């Protein structure tokens, strides 16, 4: 086909030659083209296939609402499915492909579904594919799935970067047509902070696409002048290529800036897209209006498009949709369209005006009044049109205009519904108050002069007016034109979803007459354009079919996103390893030197084990346990939450937080504490030490540190505001290491400045402020999670690794070994100490065997609710020890417990294993479990049932303390 590029005009740079491919064929376009305009200019009108019937499709629009010309853009990890060719700025080297066809776009086998299309009406699949039952998943559904969907998404990681940013302004103006430019100008001249955003590749809105006259110059020059003024003002931010995607609570707008999508690849250091959250004190929506198609037969055929699109292709892109055109509509703008096309040398065969009369100027072009286009005829391209009265007109393209729908989407994102205007034949935006106003065509102002004035008025700050330039208005008179029922071919409402005008009365007949039900039954409005083109036509047809008014039918719900948004934009830089921040302990460097393998624990990286040559995790952890229990080990416990609690009422406050008592704790001592939730369930545990009369330092578990802090803040501020207490997290100030084992004391002794460590000077549960290594302030606690004679030493974090190295050196003569959380976990299970598996948010103090700790003398969080019958029932699951009867067997965490002879069933389920460990001390697997009435069942033989992994073995219930029951080692 010959070129459809017009000889002159357009905002394209003819001196550039941009090469691109579509389905492998090479084409050339210019800077300023979109992929759609360049394809049209190259005579390529077949751009895609429809969803259900695989009908040949081309562009319907020249903008964001495009439902048909969706392509696969780019390749590899950059491949994007469903990209609107109308929004793709052409770049050299662009690669694109058509979608949803096989074997080719031109010859698409899927089109045979058209033959059976009389069966494939709206909702057909709800009525069939039910027999035989097994066929649905095996046969029908896979076929449907393969047929459905449009483009193919890449399965490779995206190589590009994304960014997020906040922005704040006094006035946000959305849309930069005549309305938006005036609004931004009015606001900006007052000195206020203004952001002007437009999704177009350049600012100017419809002024870039139309032949207008404003202030004695062309609309384009007017726009350029305003933009120049705005860009010179420091209080103005211009955001072209930026779509406002939604309006949210607090007048917060989401926006996506396509920073690099117009390039083959982004510049280094530049993101592909930037997601903005704009906090706007006030915003003006100047989004314009969308032209509606008319439902006539074959209104989806390549060559049929909205009149605005056809004018835009001619004016802005110097591309002709066809050499001869029929213009069809029910309003005055069709005359303008015909004149514009004529001015570009495109032959207009006729203006087909559905109305009997119009005063508009036809510039000598033949006009058929009171006439209707019933069908476009052709196939892959329009060859002619049939009018309802049987007239036949040859043409290559049809420009249609059903009227305008103000783009009210954003104004409806927070729940309000638009209101029908029977004169304008348009849904107008609801009143959202002064923080978010709507101006120009988006508010139903269809004349240019009205748009300029309305924009200026709505943008003005404190009523400060700016001068409004004179302009020339086009005539605007409109009559309803929705559906030409004389059509023979399908008349499409929702192009992409292939829903037709006839589907809507069918839905109504079947009981789906509510607009929301009709939407769901026919899928009208659910495609990527979200009904921007078709919904109002659908409402009109539904109204007629059910004898209701437009308002009675109403619109479906407008929801974000205004246009589809890439996941990457919302993700920003938080991908891959940067999904969440990494939190490292002050001993990280030291642990790394020691060859630690790290494990994610919440956001922390903790040293998990310290393998030596040839060791797996189990061998390493076992060796670490043996070394610790045999002599001395050192473990990083810095991740435990540490909270400084100070003040006159600190003790009283802790008494409220814990079920046991802290106000009586002696200075210089630590105590284990159990914290409940208000519902009586255990929340957290840890030791709290009293450093001074009015100063405690509390520790929490790693997992709950932040939650406990929030609970304290709540308890103090909301429940007990009269207590004179302060608390602050000092977790990060201290590097903390457990030094455990029979040689712990002689090891640490070497670091002490002056302190002679004895059972008297540092007794069990001592908590002392000491000085080490010649003046480093430290805290020394004699605590033990491992069951050994052990200490925890805390030093200011910057010294952490240095001190850990010193401890290693001091312990060298004893064979000191670093141990990680695996070894820690083995030792705690050997000793029956509870941790995450048992503190699972459903256990009580009694379940954990700590019922005696619960005070009955004071008020504390959780006291009352803990006494409910369900929480004191003796048949509750209680913590027990468990070990295989045959020491060669391996019990597994997560196995359930059955009585010795019971068959597996929920009714027979007695509990489950919460944690297991290979005990190098006992030479067998040992575990902890929660077992119904477990404390009374020590010695019972049970089944450890692990059907999930195909294991079942006999195990013995025992005391949770598997090792050193008398705690001799602790006090050794």
């Amino acid at each position: 086909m010959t070129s459809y590029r017009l000889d002159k005009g357009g905002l394209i740079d003819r001196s550039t030659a941009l090469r691109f491919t579509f389905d492998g064929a090479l084409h050339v376009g210019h800077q300023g083209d979109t992929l759609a305009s360049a394809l049209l200019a190259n005579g390529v009108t077949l751009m895609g296939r429809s969803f259900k019937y695989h009908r040949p499709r081309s562009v319907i629009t020249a903008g964001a609402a495009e439902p048909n010309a969706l392509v696969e853009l780019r390749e590899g990890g950059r491949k994007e499915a469903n990209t609107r060719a109308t929004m793709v700025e052409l770049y050299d080297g662009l690669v694109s492909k058509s979608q949803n066809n096989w074997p080719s776009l031109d010859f698409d086998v899927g089109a045979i579904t058209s033959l059976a299309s009389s069966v494939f009406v709206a909702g057909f699949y709800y009525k069939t594919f039910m027999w035989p039952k097994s066929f649905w998943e095996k046969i029908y559904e896979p076929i449907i799935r393969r047929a459905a969907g449009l483009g193919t998404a890449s399965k490779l990681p995206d190589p590009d970067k994304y960014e997020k940013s906040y922005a704040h302004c006094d006035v946000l103006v959305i849309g930069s047509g005549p309305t938006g430019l005036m609004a931004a100008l009015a606001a900006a001249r007052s000195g206020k902070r203004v952001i002007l955003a437009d999704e177009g590749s350049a600012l100017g809105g419809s002024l870039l696409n139309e032949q207008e006259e404003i202030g004695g110059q062309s609309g384009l020059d007017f726009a350029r002048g305003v933009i120049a003024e705005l860009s010179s003002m420091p209080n103005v931010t211009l955001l072209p290529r930026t779509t406002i995607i939604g309006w949210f609570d607090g007048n917060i707008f989401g926006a996506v800036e396509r920073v690099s999508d117009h390039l083959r690849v982004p510049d280094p250091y530049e993101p592909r897209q930037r997601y903005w959250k704009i906090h706007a004190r006030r915003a003006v929506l100047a989004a314009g209006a969308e032209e509606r198609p008319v439902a006539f037969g074959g209104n989806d055929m390549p060559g049929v498009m909205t009149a605005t699109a056809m004018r835009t292709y001619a004016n802005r892109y110097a591309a002709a949709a066809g050499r001869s055109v029929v213009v069809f509509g029910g309003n005055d703008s069709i005359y303008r369209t015909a004149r514009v096309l004529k001015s570009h040398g495109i032959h207009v065969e006729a203006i087909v005006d559905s109305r009997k009369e119009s005063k508009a100027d036809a510039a000598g072009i033949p006009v058929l009044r009171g006439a209707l286009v019933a069908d476009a005829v052709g196939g892959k391209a329009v060859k002619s049109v049939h009018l309802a009265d049987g007239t036949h007109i040859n043409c290559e393209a049809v420009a249609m205009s059903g009227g305008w729908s103000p783009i009210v989407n954003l104004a409806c994102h927070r729940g309000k519904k638009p209101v029908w205007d029977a004169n304008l034949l348009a849904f107008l935006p609801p009143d959202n108050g002064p923080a978010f106003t709507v101006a120009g065509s988006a508010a139903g102002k269809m004349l240019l002069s009205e748009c300029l004035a309305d924009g200026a008025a709505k943008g003005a700050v404190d009523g400060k007016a700016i001068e409004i330039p004179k302009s020339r208005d086009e005539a605007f008179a409109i009559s309803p034109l929705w559906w030409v029922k004389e059509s023979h071919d399908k008349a499409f409402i929702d192009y992409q979803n292939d829903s037709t005008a006839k589907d809507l009365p069918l839905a109504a007949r079947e009981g789906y007459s509510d607009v929301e039900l009709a939407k769901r039954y026919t899928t009208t409005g659910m495609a990527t354009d979200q009904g921007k083109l078709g919904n109002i036509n659908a409402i009109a047809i539904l109204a007629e079919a059910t004898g209701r008014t437009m308002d009675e039918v109403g619109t479906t719900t407008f929801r974000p996103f205004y246009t589809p948004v890439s996941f990457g934009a919302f993700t920003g830089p938080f991908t891959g390893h940067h999904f969440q921040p990494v939190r490292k302990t002050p001993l990280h460097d030291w642990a790394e030197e020691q060859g630690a393998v790290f494990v994610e624990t919440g956001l922390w990286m903790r040293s998990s084990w310290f393998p030596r040559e040839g060791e797996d995790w189990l061998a390493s952890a076992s060796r670490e346990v043996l070394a610790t229990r045999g002599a001395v080990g050192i473990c990083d416990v810095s991740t435990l939450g540490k909270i400084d609690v100070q003040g006159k009422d600190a003790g009283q406050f802790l008494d409220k937080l814990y079920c046991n008592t802290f106000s009586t704790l002696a200075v210089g001592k630590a105590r284990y504490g159990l914290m409940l939730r208000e519902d009586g369930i255990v929340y957290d545990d840890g030791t709290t030490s009293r450093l001074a009369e009015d100063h405690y330092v509390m520790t929490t578990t790693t997992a709950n540190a932040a939650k406990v802090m929030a609970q304290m803040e709540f308890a103090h501020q909301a429940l007990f505001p009269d207590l004179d207490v302060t608390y602050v997290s000092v977790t990060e100030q201290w590097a903390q290491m457990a030094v455990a084992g029979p040689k712990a004391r002689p090891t640490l002794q070497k670091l002490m400045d002056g302190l002679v460590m004895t059972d008297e000077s540092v007794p069990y549960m001592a908590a002392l402020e000491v000085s080490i290594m010649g003046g480093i302030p430290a805290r020394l606690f004699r605590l033990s999670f491992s069951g050994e004679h052990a200490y925890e030493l805390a030093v200011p974090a910057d010294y952490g690794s240095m001190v850990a190295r010193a401890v290693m050196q001091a312990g060298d003569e004893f064979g000191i070994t670093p141990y990680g959380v695996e070894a820690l976990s083995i030792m705690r299970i050997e000793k029956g100490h509870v941790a995450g598996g048992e503190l699972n948010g459903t256990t009580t103090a009694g379940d954990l065997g700590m019922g005696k700790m619960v005070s009955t003398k004071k008020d504390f969080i959780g006291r009352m609710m803990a006494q409910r019958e369900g929480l004191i029932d003796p048949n509750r699951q209680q913590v027990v020890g468990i070990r295989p009867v045959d020491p060669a067997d391996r019990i597994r965490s997560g196995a359930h417990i059955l009585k010795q002879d019971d068959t597996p069933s929920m009714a027979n389920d007695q509990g489950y294993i919460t944690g297991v460990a290979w005990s190098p001390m006992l030479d067998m697997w040992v575990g902890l479990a929660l077992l119904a009435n477990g404390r009374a069942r020590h010695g019972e033989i049970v089944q450890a049932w692990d059907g999930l992994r195909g294991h079942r073995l006999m195990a013995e219930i025992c005391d949770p303390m598997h090792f050193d029951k008398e705690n001799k080692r602790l006090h050794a």
Partner: protein
Amino acid sequence: MLIPCPHCGTRPVEEFTFLGDAAPTRPTTNDPSSMEAWYEYVYLRNNPRGPIEEYAHHSGGCRSWLVVSRNTETHEVFGAVTARDFSKAKEAKA
């Protein structure tokens, strides 16, 4: 949604953690006869469609607990006070 923190100024919802209705008051006694009151305090909520006074923690900011007045149907925010002031005012009323 923007929350006017009395300490930090106006901040967006992502900096806050919510804990629901602030109307229930923690009983002051542990007397067994108060069980019903405790149950109501811990478990029952008015859960209004419309205005609510709710606890919000400025967890991503100053870490104060606030009581925010807001409409649960429109998400309109009317204001915020500190939980401390709210509790004291409630106490004074009782």
